[in-house]
């Protein structure tokens, strides 16, 4: 019998390194996109809405790295402009709906009883009215524009987050450590802030990240109805919708590139959110080394 001394190595460092790389990549991606969105409109000498029928539907090439669409507009430039609109709408709407949802869910879950009953029926009520109708109405109340779209997405999409948050709070609030916190003199607000929120954060973050592309599409639907931003202005969703028509004639670039650029920031944000969660989750290190 041999008495080999072998080692069960720590997987932690390797994991951290790999996670670190993808997080850095995500951060760089977001930074580049952000810079492009902020700077390109300042320095670009091309007009994103300039139609040039003679140069329509050119495949990606040197003059137009992403090609041109069926009206001869430069897809790259429009993607940058579109990102501006869509990122703004997506991020703000996601933040709004996640915040509202979290607040309502926390309130319902922590207060319980009648407050819970009423709040959850309000959630049901909001869920019952067709989202589209609701969204349309909100936009009509304000004048069409980015603000209206953001509010419309926010108002129609907070319910999912609210329900998730509430369900988690229901499970959390009977945990003994909450009792311990109460016993230490903590009031409701403190328990919510210091004990519930950190536990809920990953779920809320995930819901918010998922809301980003959703909001982009919501904006496009409204714009198609003439209630969002005018459909000839570049937004990623509008571009994909427009590009879909040329799909069958084999022109993939006018719809593929904007599609990629909805995905890219979403993935980057989600990677960052994951990293943040892993850093804050105390149990990250306690995962077994399997």
């Amino acid at each position, binding site marked *: 019998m041999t008495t080999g001394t072998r080692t069960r190595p720590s997987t932690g460092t390797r994991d951290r390194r790999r996670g670190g790389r993808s997080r850095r990549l995500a951060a760089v991606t977001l930074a580049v996109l952000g810079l492009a969105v902020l700077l390109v409109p300042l320095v670009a000498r091309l007009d994103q809405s300039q139609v040039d029928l003679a140069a329509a539907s050119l495949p990606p090439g040197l003059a137009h790295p992403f090609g041109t669409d069926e009206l001869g507009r430069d897809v790259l430039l429009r993607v940058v402009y579109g990102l501006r609109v869509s990122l703004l709408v997506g991020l703000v709407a996601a933040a709004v709906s996640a915040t509202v949802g979290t607040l309502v869910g926390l309130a319902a879950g922590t207060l319980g009883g009648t407050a819970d009953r009423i709040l959850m029926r309000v959630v049901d009520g909001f869920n019952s009215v067709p989202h589209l109708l609701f969204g349309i109405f909100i936009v009509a109340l304000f004048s069409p524009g980015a603000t209206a779209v953001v509010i419309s997405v926010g108002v129609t999409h907070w319910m999912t987050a609210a329900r998730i948050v509430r369900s988690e709070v229901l499970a959390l609030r009977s*945990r*003994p*450590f909450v*009792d*311990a*916190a*109460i*016993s*230490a*003199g*903590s*009031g*409701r607000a*403190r*328990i919510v802030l*210091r*004990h519930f929120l*950190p*536990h809920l954060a990953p779920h809320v973050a995930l819901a918010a990240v998922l809301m980003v592309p959703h909001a982009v599409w919501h904006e496009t639907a409204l714009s198609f109805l003439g209630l969002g931003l005018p459909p000839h202005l570049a937004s990623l969703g509008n571009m994909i919708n427009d590009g879909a028509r040329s799909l069958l004639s084999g022109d993939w670039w006018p719809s593929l590139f904007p599609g990629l650029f909805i995905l890219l920031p979403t993935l980057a944000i989600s990677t960052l959110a994951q990293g943040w969660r892993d850093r*804050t*989750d*105390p*149990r990250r*290190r*306690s995962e077994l080394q399997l």
Partner: protein
Amino acid sequence: MLRADGLTVAYDRHRVLDRVTISVPPGEVTGLAGPSGCGKSSLARVLALLLRPAAGTVGVDGEEVRRWRHRAAPALRTKIALIFQQPRLAVDPRFTLLDVVAEPLRVARRPLDRAERLAEEMGLTPDLLTRRPHEVSDGQLQRACVARALTLRPRYVICDEMTTMLDASTQALLVARLEEYRRESGAGVLAISHDTELLDRWCGPGATVHRLGPAEAGPGQADGTGGTWTRT
């Protein structure tokens, strides 16, 4: 005086305590013993105002408690500190040990140095304070919970099996610390334990040790009779 009169506790119609009466006078150690599952921890939770009894009253320094958990006035809640039986469950896994100990101070907006001092008194080394609960041993966590209980200088300390996870030496250390605190502040201590030897040693002569029978055994009696015996 922290006292409970005719306490009945039931979980979903399953009755755990049946008309139990107990009192914890300030400045003294009161013992509580009883078989496993007889309702000691439940009684402790009621006394800490965390669980609303099905019947009976709880009085803190003569004031009858009408609201429980969050609703009880924070001043009342922090008068009574409960050291939970299962430390792993009683701490938020996201807190560092220092956060755990200092939480009551943070709530009360008091300086945090007392937390570190207490932790040290309980034999926790400084390197432990930055770790999270699952990175320390159960005994270390239990000591953090004891330290937490003492941070706000409570008038009553309820120790629910405070020393189950501790070796004899640390056990002796903790009991000594608690006794020190009791003598210096005049707080009342309710010591819940199965370890009669420990209770004997801790409570000393003249102290009351309540013995809780299983709930089926009928009403728990007032001091000095029935299931309770007083050491002389």
